[in-house]
């Protein structure tokens, strides 16, 4: 079934599972409409593959409105493709030209092993969150919400950091596969708010420790993460985390 008049060539990473070796495969994407999202283009290709008895390309996706953080394609050398500030599901085919060849790879990183084709395992992020990405408050412990006054600027800055969708584009973009932007976004959000300040030292120490254990690389301040982040999380968060970490390492009142 034809939807439009764009014809493209895809070079897609295919890998059966985490233990097998992968390779690129070439696919034709025919009859693509410029109004399709990048993932809908993949739907069309997969539909054609299935109907011709071939195996479809596996990729992660869910909400398709740029907020769940599940889609994760490295397109023509950039996470989430050629446009800044959006996820792959919000990338539309009008950003490409008829006849283009598009190279699609999974996120790459020791801490993001490939599960299949373009889908990777990002559970390392969950483990970092378990190490300290929370305020230790049990259900029912809270006092009236307006008893905690928070300056609007602090709340807004915390929100900007909290907007992180945990997609991992920062890790994918970083030449060292560093997860500093992801971790610092959560550290910043909670250390900016009075509720989170109480345990901010333990939080930053534990989250960084877990981050290092997961095998992410080191931050070298190229700024690629910020530039590729679909939610434009700021590098300021990384500096804030560095600050917090330094302070916590040298002043924490524990052995």
């Amino acid at each position, binding site marked *: 079934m034809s939807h439009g008049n764009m014809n493209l060539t895809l070079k897609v990473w295919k890998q059966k599972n985490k233990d097998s070796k992968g390779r690129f495969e070439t696919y034709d994407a025919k009859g693509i*409409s410029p109004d399709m999202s990048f993932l809908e283009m993949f739907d069309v290709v997969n539909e054609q593959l299935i109907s011709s008895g071939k195996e479809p390309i596996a990729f992660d996706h869910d909400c398709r409105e740029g907020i769940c953080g599940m889609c994760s394609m490295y397109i023509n050398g950039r996470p989430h493709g050629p446009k800044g500030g959006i996820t792959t599901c919000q990338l539309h085919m009008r950003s490409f030209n008829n006849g283009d060849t598009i190279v699609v790879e999974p996120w790459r990183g020791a801490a993001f092993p490939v599960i299949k084709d373009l889908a990777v*395992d990002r559970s390392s992020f969950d483990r970092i969150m378990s190490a300290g990405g929370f305020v230790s408050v049990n259900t029912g412990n809270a006092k009236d*919400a307006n008893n905690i006054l928070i300056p609007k600027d602090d709340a807004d800055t915390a929100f900007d950091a*909290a907007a992180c969708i945990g997609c991992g584009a920062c890790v994918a973009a970083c030449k060292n596969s560093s997860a500093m932007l992801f971790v610092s976004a959560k550290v910043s959000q909670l250390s900016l708010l009075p509720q989170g300040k109480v345990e901010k030292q333990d939080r930053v120490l534990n989250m960084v420790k877990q981050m290092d254990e997961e095998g992410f690389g080191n931050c070298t301040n190229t700024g690629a993460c910020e530039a590729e982040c679909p939610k434009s999380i700021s590098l300021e968060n990384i500096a804030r985390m560095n600050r917090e970490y330094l302070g916590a390492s040298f002043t924490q009142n524990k052995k």
Partner: protein
Amino acid sequence: MATSSKLNSKIPEGTLENKWTKYRSTVHLVNPANKRSLEVIVVGSGLAGSSAAASLAEMGYKVKVFCFQDSPRRAHSIAAQGGVNAAKNYQNDGDSVYRLFYDTIKGGDYRAREANVHRLAEVSGNIIDQCVAQGVPFAREYGGTLSNRSFGGTQVQRTFYAAGQTGQQLLLGAYSALQRQVGMGAVTLLARHEMMDVVTIDGKARGIIARNLVTGKLERHFGHAVLLCTGGYGNVFYLSTNAMGCNVTAAWKAHKKGAFFGNPCYTQIHPTCIPVSGDHQSKLTLMSESLRNDGRIWVPKQKDDKRKPKDIPEEERDYYLERRYPAFGNLVPRDVASRAAKERCDAGYGVGASKMAVYLDFEANMMRYGQIEANKKNLHNPTKETIRALGKEVVKEKYGNLFDMYKQITDEDPYEMPMRIYPAVHYTMGGLWVDYNLMTTVPGLYALGEANFSDHGANRLGASALMQGLADGYFVIPYTIGDYLSEEIRTKAIPTDHEAFVKAEAEVQERINKLFSIKGTKSVDYFHKALGRIMWEKCGMARNAKGLTEAIAEIQQLKKDFWSDVRVPGEQNEFNTELEKAHRVADFIELGELMCKDALNRNESCGGHFREEYQTPDGEALRDDANFAYVAAWEYKGESNFELHKEELKFENIKLAQRNYA
């Protein structure tokens, strides 16, 4: 009408205001030592699932959480935009628990249980407290207090929000609480796992069969209780604002194991979504209801008007919501707004290439905000351009992310021309029937959040889904589950080589084998799209007996075709997204049939269920309280065979009336 003997809603005695307080003080408890040996399975990790799992683990229960996504944080609660309601009355505008209760019952077109809704309104304030304590960055005023905005179907400002990403922030709060328990070892997290069936032993839910979506292996998991927090089934329509993975499988499997399905035909069509652009479309994108605060909805007064919206003068525009409903204007409830849009488009006044859209216009409010800003900045005699530029900045701050998303999808700049919008499937008020304890008709099997039918009647008000999901998880289930588990303290963990587990797993395996063995010619998506078309056309925004009867026959045929001609490529023991979809679509097809049967049975219009045969002369939904003031709870009796049980809805605190938003 009498309530079926098979349904016991267990609503506590006493006055409406005291029911929950008294219940909480008298419900059976489980002592801390016993909690440690009681295991609870939570399926789904959205607002309801994460909050329930975290709260139960904090209390000491051993909890296992399952989600099909790669992380609990991806659950589709994340996509909720506008806000969460709470009767805090921070705005001093006359809000109260009773008013939230009343608005919800009325908004639901008098088809919800009074006791449940009142409880929801009572705990709504605690939700905000809890979320703030977790570090959820709600919008604030300059004085540091929380900010509110208004939503449809109410006349007070009680909606708390975090820009256009409230669901995300609330879910991340609950997810943080969950991950904290995971880190402490109180919760075992099983991501990329999908529940394939419920295991029942002696009539009680005792565990589930799950498929590890990475390895493809089937697993057996025991639990003293099973909580389904698996969201709604809007994807039965193929195109909806739900995520691609949203499905009914868990609820449907529970239904086939004895859990009654409540009001399946109650679906919510959201009025402000980006219109369909072509048949390649895989999902629809919502533009938050909060936009109706500042956007005015209109169509040209002249049919088939080819002019650009800007060139159509004020007097030739039909602001039909303001015309029909002056008291609520653009902020009428969703079902009313959706039907009004459909009415205009069906009558030939639609706009855009497809003529199936209306305008949502921010121009007037941009100018109004601009004037306020100009006054604040003390500008004298500003030009129209200056005012507009100032106003644009205000709108950008409030809704920037939504406007960007609209532009990304449609390639049109909503700051320069009105948005084109059209209703789309968004939420399902129907779901598994539950009692006051949130327990289904299968003992030990619970349903929370959108997965149950309980609180929204026939139409949900905006910003109430987040409220309900979190209420169920944080503040209801931690109490109500004790009522059941206190009787289970002597039940030792049942080994998963018990014959019931073996049998359930074998049945799942058989179905997987069947799906692979068909080797047909059509993809799973082909059937899903076909089902979606039938459902949208015949069980969508407007329904009639003839269409529904046809739909039932068409779906039965589609089911036959599916099971004889579907093609599922690949193997079981690998990451196989087509196999996942096949399971889900197979269940959607069966559900679709039940939805049509329920819609056909309900010979009245109420909320989101609009039967064309039953309407007022003005085209409003016409209820039949004498015959249909009941919850339709359907029991599965075998293939295409469902038995109706009725739970009578008693309104002791609210007078039933025709809804009036004019």
